[in-house]
């Protein structure tokens, strides 16, 4: 450290920034949590160094590399090269849970398809919100399957192939039978 700067500083004074100045700028910009201005850099540079020239030299050295010196509000900051972003991006899947209402509606559609909205509401004993239906549509688990030939021609709903895939079912026939789900005597008694 002590043998480096003196000779170079003198030489560089005429031709450009010293190696120490560039190293200092590199380290400062790297470690700062805020963009570094030429003025801020000037405070730690040796006497006689031009902060602007040092930053220009630093930017030149990083050209085309994995990391580049970007001019941002208030100064400069290192940024990873934009062309590398797709390689660096790591997508973490964080699937949502279906809300209970949506799960119930899905189950009713699965077991009673094709089924109209009023029928779903009658089965659940409560009204079905558009949100819930939209959520199931968005998830691709249900789809309209024509209309019922009845007054008002209400839409019929059914499950999609994606529903089968999501629940690892070969076909709808693989759904557990209703009779197996509902324990006999209590259901009959009610």
């Amino acid at each position: 450290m002590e043998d480096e700067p003196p000779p170079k500083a003198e030489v560089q004074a005429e031709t450009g920034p010293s190696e120490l100045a560039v190293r200092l700028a590199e380290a400062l910009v790297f470690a700062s949590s805020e963009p570094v201005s030429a003025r801020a850099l000037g405070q730690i540079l040796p006497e006689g160094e031009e902060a602007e020239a040092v930053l220009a030299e630093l930017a030149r050295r990083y050209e085309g590399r994995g990391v580049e010196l970007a001019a941002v509000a208030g100064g400069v900051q290192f940024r990873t090269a934009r062309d590398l972003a797709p390689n660096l991006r790591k997508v973490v899947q964080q699937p949502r849970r279906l809300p209970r209402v949506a799960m119930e509606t899905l189950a009713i559609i699965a077991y009673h398809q094709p089924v109209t909205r009023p029928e779903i509401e009658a089965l659940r004993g409560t009204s079905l919100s558009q949100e819930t239906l939209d959520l199931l549509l968005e998830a691709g688990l249900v789809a309209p399957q024509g209309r019922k030939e009845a007054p008002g021609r209400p839409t019929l709903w059914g499950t999609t192939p994606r529903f089968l895939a999501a629940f690892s079912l070969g076909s709808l026939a693989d759904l557990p039978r209703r009779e197996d789900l509902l324990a006999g005597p209590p259901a009959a008694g009610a």
Partner: protein
Amino acid sequence: MSEASSSGQLLLRLEGFEGPLDLLLELARAQKLDLARISILALVEQYLAVIEGARAVRLELAADWLVMAAWLAWLKSRLLLPAGSPEAEEGERAADVLAARLAALEAMRAASLWLGGRTMLGRDVFPRGVPESFVEIDRSGFRVDMPALLAAYLGALRRAQAAVRYQPPPLTVWTVQDALGRLEQLLGSVPDWASLEQFLPEQLLAPDERRAALASTLVASLEMARDGGLRLRQERPFGPILVGRVEGGAGGGR
């Protein structure tokens, strides 16, 4: 003499020690010897001298200083016994334990110094000030599974059933009005005196319903008897109640 003066100095700094073991370690270091070869007896005497000195100037001492002093006094009494006796051996073992504890603490002091001498992040070197994150969280998927689907289905059905309000099955009641009609209708076709039971409707089979119908028929017969439509007779308490036609003119049937 030098011991007394050093004790005095230590006394002034007693507050600066991290407990009795810390002071003992400092005293051991003052012996300028390998920790394995320090004189535990000398150490004990120095510690006790410090504590005595503190008491002399009525310095408030925390309990652990005094507990250590008591234990060291006991240790000293054992170490002063002639070698070979069981008590002396006990003292030797306790002295070894103390030396081992001091060595362990000394090792950790050295480790702490070693760590402090490392190239430290944030002191000697600095990490990047603005780390970037390329992690994207994809929340578009849904987590579904068959048990949850089935549980939801059963839950929905159960709740829908619970929502239907309980209605008790309607009771078939033979009203007084019904009984009046039947009495009037049958009165002409029965012989002179007939038991009240004979006027009950044939279709009623349930015992509760039969008793209710009997009560209604009795009330109806009393009403008709009052109006002179028939006569009633009972031979004895709780005996059968007999119903008779009114022959021609009126007549109190009571």
